[in-house]
């Protein structure tokens, strides 16, 4: 009754590095990132796309890694929380979350960082309402979202100023 191990070889660019991994056909990207590639910053809160803790970018598109089959990313570019700080320099969203105390337990934080980065790339000047709706898929039970939203808007403003210089 045990089926033989049925692994697929997948090649993708993960956080800028060409990466090859083996996965089973039904394995989701979140599990491969965490268990095979030791990228444990992608968190699993629900496994059904309802909490956003596993948010990653696939070809710059914001998705839940629990709802992507690992085999689907063949030839694609995946960016996880581990790839957001470039050369050890924090992304403004990361820096502003720290400064605004926009995290308490921190389990949602990697997903929030990835989603907020995608928001600002998509819309460099989001309103409060736009930020709230964009991040509605990132559940946070600790903060009431207040300091998260302030941090994201502040990061966007800083990035606009830097872009203008």
């Amino acid at each position, binding site marked *: 009754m045990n089926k033989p191990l049925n692994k697929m070889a997948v090649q993708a660019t993960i956080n800028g590095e060409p990466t090859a991994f083996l996965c089973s056909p039904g394995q989701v990207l979140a599990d491969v990132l965490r268990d095979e590639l030791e990228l444990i910053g992608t968190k699993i809160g*629900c496994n*059904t796309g309802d909490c956003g803790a596993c948010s990653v970018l696939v070809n710059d598109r914001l998705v839940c890694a629990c709802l992507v089959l690992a085999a689907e990313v063949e030839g694609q570019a995946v960016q996880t929380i581990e790839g957001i700080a470039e050369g050890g320099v924090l992304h403004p969203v990361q820096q502003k979350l720290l400064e605004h105390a926009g995290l*308490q337990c921190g389990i949602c934080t990697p997903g929030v960082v990835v989603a907020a980065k995608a928001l600002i790339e998509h819309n460099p000047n989001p309103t409060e309402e736009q930020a*709230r709706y964009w991040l509605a898929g990132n559940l946070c039970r*600790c*903060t*009431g979202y207040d300091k*998260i939203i302030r941090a994201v808007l502040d990061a966007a403003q800083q990035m606009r100023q830097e872009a203008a210089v």
Partner: protein
Amino acid sequence: MDSGAYSGNPASFPAFMATACYKLTDARSTGRAVYTNKPKIHAYRAPSVPQVTLGFELAMTELAAELGMDPLAFRLKNAVEEGDVNMMGAPYNRIGLRECLEVASAHAHYKAPVAEGEGRGVAAGYWINAGLQSSATLNVLSDGHLSILTGSPDIGGSRASMALMAAEVLGIPFEHIHPQIAATDAVGHCDVTGGSRTTLATGQAVIQAAEQCVAEMCRRAAAEWEVEAGVVTWSQGAAHYGEQSLTFEALARRAGTMGGPLTFSSSLTASSAAPSFGVHICDAKVDKETGRTTITRYTTIQDAGKAIHPAYVEGQMQGGAAQGIGWALNEEYLYDENGVLQNPGFLDYRIPVASDLPFIDTVIVEVPNPLHPFGVKGVGEVPIVPPMPAVAEAVYQSAGVRLREMPLNPPKIVAALQEQ
């Protein structure tokens, strides 16, 4: 109340907590806990107090209305203060309910007119706050940094508050302090992070250990200077006597030749817990056709004793308010007749998402706890107590229907409006 399948947490607290904000001379509270085929209930943020406070606070508001009084002024008239005794017979020490009510009355939110079609509700809340057992060990490192070990898991920033308190006592930079959560074999016993006790009780162990460190460093400096230990003073991160001084870093670097490793531990059962109070103001707009409620403005005011790291105190206030708003509007377990939960996921167990909430304004009131060296009071639990009655009153003021069964979801509001 429903215990679920097994008993556990005692049912005795909440009854008196409902009345804890006001001077009551005569009262009786009875409660029954019942077994049902559901999971055993467990502690949840200010266990049971929001539930009993709902009724009491709504009654206070209704009574104020009947008397033609402002609901905050009515509460202020009846608010407990130092020396009053609660239903458990315990006298209050210096507490901050009056201050919170006064700040709320004067707040720009409360002064602002209620927008067309909206309603406003206010409510107060109380939580006893726990002390319990805590331990901390401080290790002075050879480069003048400090490691702090405690056994209190950090859920909302307590490592930052531990480092701040140690920095305050020792006078060394915050960045030189490295707080860690140690395993059970590496530090003395700590009870759970819960009951709003960690910054208060584990923090007090840190403060005591840091004070031991200061005393020992002063002794060592005195020995170096060949003076009585009592004449050496500690300030700005250094021991001083006359013109002479020895810094924390110097004493750390020379520990090996001045008496050995500098390690200090403190364990205690904190008797310094003090009750905490909060007042919330909620504006809400009910769409009377669909029954949907939008929270349009929300303000929380709370006595934190002394706020060690104000941003994380605000965070507790905002997070507690958000959870309470979730309870008020949508959250509930739905069982079928076989005892099977119908909504075991975040899709249908609806906690608030970012677009469901406005910014949540905060005002930290600081009435120091006289039993704590820094004046700290617990802050994590009070903020979930007032939201249900505050939201329910705002819904009533907006929609004109008074609902006493939570949550105030759209079908319930429409049904009540149609009945009217």
